[in-house]
């Protein structure tokens, strides 16, 4: 227990009255990471479930890892590397973005926790990993930093911090970067790593680049990859969004542990498929020959459905609301993809729009409960 002694020894420095007391929240975050505190129950139930926020968030991070590691491999494989080299190349390539995301995001979170004299919430540990995964791999780091800062400050902290925000923070970062820097964030090159190292050459990168599957579909009505390629993830796209298979492995973890709501998740897929079939039947010409399930395989649909539409804070909070919001998210994503030719990715906007609408839908669900209760009075 040498470590425990060390922590106890330096603790007073960071506590009220200590020299570094302005870092109290930060110290607490690291201390509680190392040790579950010795706090006992003071009021109410004397025993407590051993589940806490750290565990819950760890499960989400675990669920993200398959898609993350596939992203690493694919980032290398896209520029003609193979096997372990490809994975290592991708990992090295994405690492700065992950680091920037965590350092900027957690830095702001720690500062706000200190100002509010609260413990640091674990929510950003998930957001921080999610943000690099929904960005194109060649997004400049300063853009990531700006997006993260915007998302954490204006997407979360101004509302009162974790648990109070209206919009999914990761998507807030993504939408900020997309609309602030549209030219840099679209086109063909941004989806491919631009680092020449480990044998990757500029010519090689140029030869590999091409439009995303979604862009091909929306312009030509077909894509050059098979559905199986798209399912496994061998298509261009944001870093962690391409492999539907890996995302579904994550989904299985989230559903089994009940960390994510199956109601939301299944409803998103159902909504997407329903509108996909509708457009297959009576949509614009170029979309009629595209099977509805393609929508799930390409773009950010699966990643959004599994990891972002299910965000418990920004999604609906009532069970009935979850079905409605989920279905509308999926349907809206496909609607944007099909009907809006200027911007083929609908998932991001669909989720954010439904984030805004979710409290209203919940309001009506809860209102129905209130009406049932008021009926008792008249009896």
């Amino acid at each position, binding site marked *: 227990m040498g470590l425990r002694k060390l922590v106890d020894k330096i603790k007073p420095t960071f506590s009220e009255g200590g020299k570094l007391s302005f870092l109290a929240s930060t110290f607490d975050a690291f201390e509680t990471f190392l040790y579950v505190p010795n706090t*006992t129950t003071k009021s109410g139930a004397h025993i407590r479930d051993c*589940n*806490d*926020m750290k565990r*819950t968030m760890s499960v989400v991070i675990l669920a993200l890892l398959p898609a993350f590691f596939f992203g690493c491999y694919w980032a290398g494989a896209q520029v003609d590397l193979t096997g372990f080299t490809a994975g290592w190349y991708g990992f090295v390539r994405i690492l700065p973005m992950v680091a920037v995301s965590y350092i900027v995001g957690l830095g702001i979170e720690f500062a706000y926790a200190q100002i509010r004299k609260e413990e640091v919430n674990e929510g950003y540990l998930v957001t921080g990993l999610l943000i690099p995964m929904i960005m194109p791999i060649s997004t400049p780091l300063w853009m990531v930093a700006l997006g993260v800062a915007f998302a954490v400050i204006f997407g979360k902290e101004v509302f009162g*911090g974790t*648990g109070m925000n209206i919009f999914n923070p990761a998507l807030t970062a993504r939408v900020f970067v997309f609309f602030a820097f549209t030219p840099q964030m679209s086109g063909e090159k941004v989806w491919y790593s631009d680092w020449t190292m480990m044998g990757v050459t500029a010519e090689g990168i140029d030869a590999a680049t091409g439009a995303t599957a979604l862009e091909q579909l929306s312009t030509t009505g077909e894509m050059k990859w098979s559905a199986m390629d798209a399912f496994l993830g061998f298509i261009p796209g944001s870093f962690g969004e391409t492999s539907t298979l890996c995302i579904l492995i994550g989904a299985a973890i989230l559903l089994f542990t009940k960390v994510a709501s199956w109601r939301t998740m299944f409803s998103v897929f159902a909504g997407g498929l329903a509108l996909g079939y509708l457009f297959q039947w009576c949509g614009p010409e170029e979309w009629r020959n595209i099977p509805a399930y393609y929508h799930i395989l390409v773009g950010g649909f699966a990643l959004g459905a599994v990891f972002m539409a299910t965000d418990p804070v920004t999604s609906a909070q009532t069970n009935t609301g979850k079905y409605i919001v989920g279905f509308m998210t999926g349907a809206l994503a496909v609607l944007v993809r099909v009907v809006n030719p200027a911007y083929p990715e609908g998932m991001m906007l669909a989720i954010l729009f439904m984030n805004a609408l979710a409290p209203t839908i919940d309001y009506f669900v*809860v209102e129905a409960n209130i009406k049932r*209760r008021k009926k008792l009075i008249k009896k």
Partner: protein
Amino acid sequence: MSKIIKLRKGLDIKLRGEAAQQLVEVPMAQEYAVSPLDYDGVTPKMLVKVGEQVKAGTPLFFDKNNERILFCAPVSGTVSAVNRGEKRKILNVTITSDGQLTSEEFATPDLQKVSREEVIEMLLKSGLWTMIQQRPYGIIANPSDNPKAIFVSAFDSAPLAPDFNFVLKGEQKSLQKGFEVLSKLTDGGVHLSVRANAEGEMSALNGVELHTFKGKHPVGNVGVQIHHIDPMAKGDIAWTVNIQDVAIIGRLFMTGKVDMHKVIALTGSEVENPQYYKVISGAPVASIVKGNIKVQKEGDTVRYISGNVLTGANVGEHGFLTAKAHQITVIPEGDKYEMLGWAMPRFKKFSVSRSYFSWLCPSKKYRLDTNLNGGPRAFVVTGLFEEYLPMDIYPMYLFKAMIAKDIDKMENLGIYEIVEEDVALCEFVDPSKTEIQKLVRESINLMIKEC
């Protein structure tokens, strides 16, 4: 037989230290205590001084908010102390027992002829009125109200709770009498809820409307039962009485004497021989647990809870049995650091979350300590509380209204239907470690003040 009301939601937390069905009679203790803190919303005013002689049923203090409500001595003897805390708040009144158990004498009325007012008067004078609780709010009933009905739960579903069929063995006559008394207090009838397949002799009682419930905790909570029998609307008043207290009331009307004997279960993982004890209300915890606690490792301590692990009071080794408790639970304190605990498999801890492994062995009994297992956070997870509150209520919305002190919303979202014990499981499972029971009581106090 009425149809069985099945509740799907809830949770039975399986703990070690269930009481064996054997009864031990405890010799009279030196000292007994009556505490106003065992009741919510009571402002005590003393009626006796230290050194005065009292009998069982002699008033010790009354409630300033309702002067008719008297709190009486459980035993005969001498008032030994009025213990006060901060701002001279009365913590409890202790009585040194003379070992005689003499009681104030009351005339035993013929329940067929006597009026409702006379019954109420007798309950008030004997101090037994304090056993009658009011919904909404879970406070002592106001004797000038006329409740829509009286509800009694014949079973307790909380962790390690006593089996009332065993506790009340041989008390059938007192129970029957008690229910006759309760019937006098309301025009709306007396509802008795029993557990399916564990009805015991309860279903043989006359003059009650019998309901059968099936399900997990909190199915035994009278508030949950009211919700499924005849839910509380705004303006409704219902009364509730604990089943063992019904027997005590019955004894008063049979013998004219205040006899505060009751049977409690001594439970919990740290008890050597968990079993039942016949004691007198207000008995010192030490007189019951003495010599029956497992030897602890150096540096380890235990917590003495008057009541169950979800709703009981931490009274300490030198505390007294609280008025509403029918069990004492002794569990280990969890004041220990746990390295990287949140990342560990934690096979010895319990969680409803499948991110741990409790779901693999559903019948395993746990030795759980009092560690909070985390730090307080904002509400993040949704849809969890709903699984542990078997009522048509949106708990998260209700709790948020409580935090915001929004009285209209609290009212609309169902505050009249719940008291602390009904949301205890929500508090137990909450990964954000919110003090929900405290929040509920503070909100109820706010409602009482404002409405």
